């Protein structure tokens, strides 16, 4: 893989370097005024044409359905419909042990599967009071940020393709491949990793992973600069994205839109900082914030986040502590595999965990983590024993899809695809 990376076409060129005469930040009132301007288009009146966009449509990113009422090309009303991919994950969770739930969470947001594993494990650990060892926290942080990178790169390709450039999609896929290769090396799977475990992770870092990972994160910022060179200063992209789909911070709170969309509205809200988990409170990174609350700024936020992710991974690799990669907690965690093969106590623990499951105390917890698409909350109510009594995944896409009418009414059909892509909805995440 290394030779492929080295022969890449990326040039180490810093594109943006924030200009000193940055435009003044708009206030909330100004943003509302800008948004009201798109709504004015609604006052033309006229005949309404109803179109069902989806469930099978090239740019609904799955089986999302939007029933549009159009006046010409302007969207007058929009009714989002979800559920075409409903698999009853929450019901299944009530009949599985905590360990068995982890593979189910993979299938929520399959573009950032590890982040979903991680969110569930954080909640379960909070319920069971498991202390995660330092090395496991660092490995989790690395994997979490890798999944954020993979998700954002895929997002970028798809977003740009929705605006009409197919070539860029392939470029993004090419770079996502390096990340998936890393995941394959780390977890054995490219998409659905099931890598997190209660109290740690499934495996230690494999040999050679660190060098390979370092190569990728040295190389990715150059690629990100290349993306920006292609997209950020592209005049058509600017015209298509600037002041389109404005969603102010107040709108975001009201519709529970989180993640990059909220940060593009000028709110420095990031659960990695605000309610830190894994190793995020031991690492320096910045929260990406932009202030114009439009599609263009959501793009900028994600670009900055990708750079920050590389930074986080580098720090994690630098400061990777030694020690066990899963908690030595016989009641709740699986043992390390190498101990199972040597140590009879560990083997008994393994049997116990696999056949009976972790014994959780009675109680209810809610834990939210910052997954690439926004905030994912996991609610677990336990009545004791190995199976939860109720699990609820508060997934970001669920709410992002719901907010589509507030985002897109008054805009045009062509903007709708840009806006829908910009809030990043994945249907596995939304339909549960």
């Amino acid at each position, binding site marked *: 893989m290394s030779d492929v990376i080295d022969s890449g076409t990326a040039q180490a060129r810093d594109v943006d370097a924030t200009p000193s005469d940055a435009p003044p930040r708009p*206030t*909330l009132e100004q943003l509302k005024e800008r948004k009201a301007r798109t709504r004015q288009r609604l006052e033309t009146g006229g005949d309404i044409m109803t179109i069902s966009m989806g469930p099978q449509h090239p740019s609904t990113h799955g089986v999302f359905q939007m029933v549009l009422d159009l006046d010409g090309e302007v969207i007058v009303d929009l009714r989002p419909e*979800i*559920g075409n991919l*409903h698999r*009853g994950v*929450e*019901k*299944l969770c*009530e*009949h599985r042990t905590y360990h068995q739930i982890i593979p189910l969470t993979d299938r929520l947001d399959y573009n950032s599967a590890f982040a979903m594993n991680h969110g569930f494990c954080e909640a379960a650990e*909070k*319920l069971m009071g498991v*202390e995660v060892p330092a090395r496991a926290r660092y490995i989790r942080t690395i994997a979490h940020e890798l999944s954020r990178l993979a998700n954002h790169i895929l997002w970028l390709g798809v977003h740009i393709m929705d605006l009409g450039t197919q070539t860029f999609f392939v470029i993004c896929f090419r770079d996502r491949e390096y990340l998936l290769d890393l995941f394959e090396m780390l977890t054995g799977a490219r998409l659905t990793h099931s890598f997190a475990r209660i109290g740690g992770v499934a495996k230690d870092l494999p040999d050679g992973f660190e060098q390979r990972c370092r190569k990728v994160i040295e190389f990715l910022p150059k690629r990100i600069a290349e993306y920006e060179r292609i997209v950020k200063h592209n005049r058509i992209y600017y015209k298509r994205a600037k002041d389109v789909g404005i969603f102010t*911070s*107040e709108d975001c*709170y*009201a*519709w*529970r839109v989180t993640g990059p969309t909220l940060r593009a*509205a*000028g*709110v*420095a*809200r990031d659960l990695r*900082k*605000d309610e*830190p988990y894994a190793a995020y*409170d*031991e*690492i*320096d990174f*910045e*929260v*990406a*914030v932009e202030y114009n609350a439009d599609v263009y700024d959501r793009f900028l936020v994600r670009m900055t986040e990708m750079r920050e992710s590389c930074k986080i991974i580098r720090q994690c690799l630098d400061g990777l502590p030694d020690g066990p990669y899963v908690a030595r907690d016989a009641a709740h965690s699986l043992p390390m595999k190498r101990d199972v093969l040597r140590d009879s106590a560990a083997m008994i623990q393994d049997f116990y965990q696999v056949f009976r499951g972790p014994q959780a105390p009675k*109680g*209810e*917890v*809610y834990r*939210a983590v910052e997954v690439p698409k926004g*905030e994912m*909350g996991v*609610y677990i*109510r336990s009545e004791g024993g190995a199976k939860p*009594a*109720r699990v*609820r995944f*508060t997934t970001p896409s*669920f*709410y992002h*899809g*719901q*907010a589509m009418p*507030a985002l897109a009414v008054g805009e045009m059909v062509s903007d709708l695809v840009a806006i829908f892509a910009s809030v990043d909805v994945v249907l596995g995440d939304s*339909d*549960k």
Partner: protein
Amino acid sequence: MSAARFVQPPRPAGSSTKRDRTAVRAATSLAPTLATAAAKLRRRFGARLLEEEESFGELTFVIAPGDWMRVLAFCKSAPDLGFDQLDCLMGDHLPERADTPFAVLAHLTSHTHAHRLRVKTFLPEGGSLPTVTGLWPSAGFDERETWEMFGVVFQGHPDLRRLLTAEDFEGFPLRKDFPLEGIVGGRVRTELRGKI
């Protein structure tokens, strides 16, 4: 109230983000702002807050269904509480509670004060609650899901239809007595399309 948060600049780089791990991990005591908020709620509603539970660093208030709208509206509008975001509204089924087996939980988040609160109410079979879509529009899908999964009706909801299951699905799948396997309803009855 959100404007204060809005103009807040991003945290400067390098400002010490390293916290005392033990303090974060232990997290048994409530955040000071949340303590103030809880005190204010108690002062405002007194005995109407039926139960109060504090566990895992989270605060839960149990209220009567009749107080649902009142308490949540207060939580949103009172400056010290400032719960401007409804993180999640969900249902639960506890068959061991014979009279009021259904629970509806609202997880509230405040961007102003960065604290969370859980408000819970118990309902009998066939019970109903007022909708909170007027307070937080994001409750729309949540309430639809709670209705289809548990059969809890939300009065005044603008569009209370099935959300995740097919429109001709029968039964409430997340109730404990709903079987995990087998076919219950859900057969395609095209004459019902668009009517349910």
